[in-house]
């Protein structure tokens, strides 16, 4: 079992403190839901863990082995908010680079892959791209997966399908997921954390979401 630890993250933009007292743990076998208001630094925190955003200070480790960037040697995979699959390359060519060999049989038998494997990414619709992009990240060889708004612009049926796959894949991986569709996050997560005033707060009851000003109390 692996444990990802993020601690003492300090992030500023133009002198404004965004993140200042962050502590987050995620073990393989669990889904951690990350909630917070717009601009509170959820996506920034995921990008800091992945290694594409450099904060003033951070501590990042897997099983106490310090990492500089999460993506090095495929320890952490990250699904960004917008399409990340390059144009002009066939879906099969991209999938072979991203999907782990142990998941290849399962992935290559998915309907969406069978239907589109010979197409180039520009021949796919936005929804198909999002679905394929997300599946390639979930079936990646990384031990930890960060999902940034996976349920945005997704139909309820697709959201349910994604939640099923997240739960299945999380048996072997640690997953940190954030989205504004908090009901989907609550459904899929084993544990919830809210970012409020730049700090991470564990959520132990639904009332905590009101206490930390994430929900208004009328929901």
């Amino acid at each position: 079992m692996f444990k990802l630890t993020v601690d003492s993250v300090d992030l500023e933009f133009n002198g404004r403190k965004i993140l200042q007292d962050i502590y987050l743990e995620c073990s393989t076998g669990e889904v951690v839901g990350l909630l917070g208001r717009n601009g509170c630094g959820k996506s920034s925190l995921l990008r800091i863990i992945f290694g594409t955003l450099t904060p003033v200070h951070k501590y990042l480790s897997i099983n106490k082995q310090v990492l500089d960037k999460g993506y090095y040697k495929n320890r952490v995979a990250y699904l960004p908010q917008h399409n990340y699959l390059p144009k002009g390359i066939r879906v099969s060519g991209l999938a072979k680079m991203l999907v782990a060999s142990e998941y290849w049989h399962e992935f290559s038998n998915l309907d969406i892959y069978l239907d589109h494997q010979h197409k180039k990414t520009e021949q796919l619709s936005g929804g198909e791209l999002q679905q394929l992009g997300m599946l390639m990240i979930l079936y990646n060889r990384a031990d930890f997966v960060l999902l940034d708004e996976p349920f945005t612009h997704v139909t309820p049926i697709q959201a349910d399908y994604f939640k099923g796959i997240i739960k299945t894949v999380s048996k072997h991986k640690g997953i940190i997921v954030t989205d504004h569709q908090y009901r989907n996050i609550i459904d899929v997560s084993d544990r919830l954390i809210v970012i409020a005033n730049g700090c991470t707060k564990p959520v132990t009851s639904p009332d905590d979401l009101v206490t930390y000003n994430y929900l208004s109390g009328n929901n």
Partner: protein
Amino acid sequence: MVLANNNQCFYLLLIVNVKYLKRLSILSLQFYKLLFWYNVAFTIVALIVLQFGAIPINAVSFAIAKLAGYLIAVGLHYYNSKNHYFYFRNTGYSMRWIFIGALFTDILVYSIIALICLN
């Protein structure tokens, strides 16, 4: 016994490195494909600029034009399609290695073209 273990370690390392390099070369080719038309266009522009500057086109000036064309192509691609870098990073490689791999491919392609032209 120790020697046998050393040999096993050596072959294991070799297999790991061959796999690493094979994946890196595929990713470099994919990145090179994305840059290709930018690269060709800016290399031609750089050669034209050199000629207007009355600099004779030889191996050195061509290499400078080639490098400038490649760097401008990478810069423009970065400006337009930065989000695609997440794909390459999600494979576990840093962009620095992808850039180097694509530059190596570029040098190889232009060397082959130069050799064909010279013959």
